[in-house]
């Protein structure tokens, strides 16, 4: 069994970055439209979770006529079970910086920011060193681009792009209404490209080896490789770069401890896949059968049969209840209701049918919440409640 695509390790991202100067110099000598076309033809999609085509994002921003634009690297990696951005920034920071500068060249911007989550304060020092080195070279080749680090202060929601802008503007990190989108109205109201750390690392790969090398990896709709943060009940936790399109079955074969009961794909806001669906689940933007979308940031958490799924869900909901920004009703009150609800069912204060009411509530949250956080609470909730209903009740 298993899919056609066997699990395939790839080594692009953490390959040494010593050629960054060459790549920067070459890239910025090429016209913007050529770079954009290269990205578009690679079919690279955002690695932060939403999966928006990166080339298109750059293109839309490039088409804006503003004199001031920004390039922002989103390093507010807060999704439970995700830690790949930290690894990239500590091991190959110059790749990310190079890609930011190339983006600056493409969209005609000379300012870049890295929004680094507060928990990664310890990365700041080394990162700043890399930035100095980078900026020095930029000056050397007369390329006008500067990069600054902006520290977050402990708020998961700031990973949402518009919330991140608000936070950088010195406000509460509350998501904005969309439209307008960042490509026309981003940081300080200016057109902004905002990319995840890993996305920028992949663009470096594309600029280094060409779009084709990237495109040849993966399957239709899901091209290239992806970093996976593997944790939980696994004998080998850590970061792995794998080709997209693998079956979850193969993944569990490789990383499971032999007793894997379920895998949480994509962190707390992703999907939980129970054992019986491992076979039919593919990891990629357009999953087959179960329709699983790409893991948010590539987090893979494995649970073996000793784990209570009730505790898992309780932990997630606690997380969302605290980390919701609180402005929109479905998310603020919905998360509290879900958490109190499963507790009440467990205690026996509410009957089992109440779970169905909560499932309908998650649908509403998915349909009406203002941003991705509220919308995605439904994912893990419905998967856990539907597949492990008994554990919720008894």
């Amino acid at each position: 069994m298993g899919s056609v695509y066997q699990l395939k390790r790839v080594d692009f991202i953490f390959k040494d970055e010593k050629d960054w100067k060459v790549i920067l110099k070459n890239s910025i000598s090429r016209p913007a439209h050529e770079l954009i076309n290269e990205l578009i033809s690679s079919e690279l999609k955002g690695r932060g979770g939403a999966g928006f085509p990166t080339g298109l994002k750059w293109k839309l921003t490039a088409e804006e006529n503003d004199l001031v634009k920004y390039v922002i690297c989103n390093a507010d990696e807060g999704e439970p079970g995700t830690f790949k951005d930290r690894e990239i920034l500590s091991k190959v920071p110059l790749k990310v910086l190079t890609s930011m500068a190339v983006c600056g060249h493409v969209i005609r911007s000379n300012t870049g920011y890295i929004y680094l989550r507060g928990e990664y304060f310890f990365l700041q020092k080394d990162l700043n060193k890399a930035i100095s080195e980078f900026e020095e070279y930029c000056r050397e080749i007369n390329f006008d681009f500067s990069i600054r680090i902006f520290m977050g202060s402990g708020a998961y929601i700031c990973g949402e792009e518009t919330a991140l802008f608000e936070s950088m503007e010195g406000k509460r990190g509350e998501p904005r209404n969309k439209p307008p989108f960042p490509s026309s109205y981003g940081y300080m109201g200016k057109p902004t490209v905002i990319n995840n750390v890993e996305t920028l690392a992949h663009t470096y790969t594309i600029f280094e080896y060409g779009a084709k090398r990237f495109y040849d990896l993966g399957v239709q709709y899901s091209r290239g490789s992806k970093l996976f943060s593997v944790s939980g009940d696994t004998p080998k936790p850590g970061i792995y770069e794998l080709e997209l399109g693998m079956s979850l079955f193969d993944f569990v074969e490789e990383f499971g401890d032999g007793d894997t009961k379920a895998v949480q794909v994509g962190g707390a806001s992703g999907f939980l896949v129970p054992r019986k669906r491992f076979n039919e689940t593919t990891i990629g933007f357009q999953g087959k059968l179960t329709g699983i979308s790409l893991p948010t940031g590539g987090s893979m958490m494995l649970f073996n049969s000793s784990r209570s799924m009730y505790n898992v869900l309780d932990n997630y909901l606690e997380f969302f209840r605290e980390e919701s920004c609180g402005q929109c009703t479905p998310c603020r009150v919905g998360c509290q209701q879900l958490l109190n609800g499963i507790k009440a069912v467990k205690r026996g204060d509410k009957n089992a049918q109440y779970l169905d009411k909560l499932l309908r509530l998650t649908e509403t949250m998915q349909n009406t919440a203002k941003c991705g956080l509220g919308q995605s609470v439904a994912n893990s909730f419905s998967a856990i409640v539907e597949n492990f209903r008994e554990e919720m009740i008894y």
Partner: protein
Amino acid sequence: MAKKVKITINEVAVEIEAGTSILDAARQTGVIIPTLCYHKDLCVAGNCRVCVVEIVGQKRLSAACATPCEEGMDILTNSFKVRNSRKHIIELLLSEHNADCTRCYKNGNCELQKLASDYKIMTQDFIRLVPYKNYTIDQYSPSIIKDDSKCIRCQRCVRTCEELQGVNALTVAYKGDHMKISTFFEKPMNDVICTNCGQCINHCPTGALVERNYIEEVWEAIADKSVHVIVQTAPAVRIGLGEELGFPVGSRVTGKMVAALKRLGFDAVMDTDFSADLTIMEEGTELMVRLKKVLEDHDPTIMLPMATSCSPGWIKYIEHMYPGYLGHLSTCKSPQQMFGALAKTYYAKQRGLDPEKIVSVSIMPCTAKKFESNRPEMHDSGYRDVDYVLTTRELAIMIKQAGIDFMKLEDRPFDSLMGESTGAAVIFGATGGVMEAALRTVYELVTGREIPFENLNITPVRGMEGIKEASVKIESPLEQWAFLDGVELKCAVAHGLINAKTVMDSIAAGTSQYHFIEFMACPGGCLGGGGQPIPTNPEIRRKRAEAIYAEDEGMKLRKSHLNPEILKIYNDFLLKPMGVKSHDLLHTKYTARARF
């Protein structure tokens, strides 16, 4: 011509200006989409999610208030998905709301109540969250009560306080389930820079922010046979009160209001308009004196422009925000406080009453007046000048409680001595009104001629623009005002504290060219005051303003200095404007307060 886009709303095709929100487009085509956090006065927040609609082809629903129409959109406002979601959202709001409506102050005029009723939420399956939270009621302010258990986090108050008033006393604090509307460090409203303007009350959809009411205290005073209860009514009350009692917006109910007050059992019903005329006499004179001292005597201690001082919200604002500029303020008390001081002196004397046995009540469109009457400076009569301040809304409640069939009342006139007024006093209720009234009198006192505006209507200072300007050139004045010959008197009018901020910043920067500026804390002036009927929105303000100007035009006398009772009080009691008695009773001083 703006670009048009074609969309369909509930299967009806319409053409709409590009960029219009779905909400507005729907309203234009007769489809009502329910809203909560949306308010015409304020920026779009899109956080309550009650207004979600389905755009065919999109997986998720969109907030109608925050989504602009785009070509070809196929919008459903009442699909299965929308209805289910909307009901869920209302249920969620209810689950964190203290739903004890029968003893809520906003019972009957609550947007959440209406929403729950329109959607007939008949079950309360969700767990009640109120008991989980440790809510306290902040009732330390003399003007405003804040009850978080009724708050639905729509943030209208926060936006009001920031966008309309520039005060920022209220803010959103914390996140997630702890997210709440708070003051700095959760201090009581009374201890922060709140100006008590009450605009947050007027914009609150539920009972989370309400005025501190003094209805019971006033009933007690009325019931107490040993005291003489005297009441005054502000200009803007007569054009707002009707709305609470079944009249259409913009109805003038002066006569019925007086009749109702008499029925309620007040011993004397008099008019703040009288003291508004008096204010013009005092403030107009003060302006002329200041002009003389600056232009002729070149006295450096006297500050121009002179700013009006009728609006207690504005006074507290300048005390907090521009404590170094208090010298610009006119020393005149507000008309309410002038009236209060006279009630326990002049009126008591004329009627032979013991001032200690007078209870002075005022009916105001304003919540800040409740604070004002509480200021230590406001005891110039030897007693507390005004004992209780009620808002227009509270008066309406009293009338209903007393079982008065307001619609059927016959008009009655104010009692004499301090009940007569002119059109100039009436327009105090609208933005620009004090300026217009002052100019009518000042110009005539200076030149001996009527101000050269058609029918006395100084139109440049009317209307709802945030900052308005007017100038009048003075030519061939009377002899004693010769120094004003050829001077172009420059005036400005600002309403809403955010506009006051703009003007004050120009004064602080030294770029202000004006001689005289009228400031009102609330958008639209008193007619849009924090104590006026809810809702108040641009359309309603416009109608109330029309009613005010109609009332003015209908008056026999339209210039303050012609008011016979004003002439009488100067003759019998005060002797002259800015005289010793005036100084003791009608003028005041201000206190610098901290901004932080």
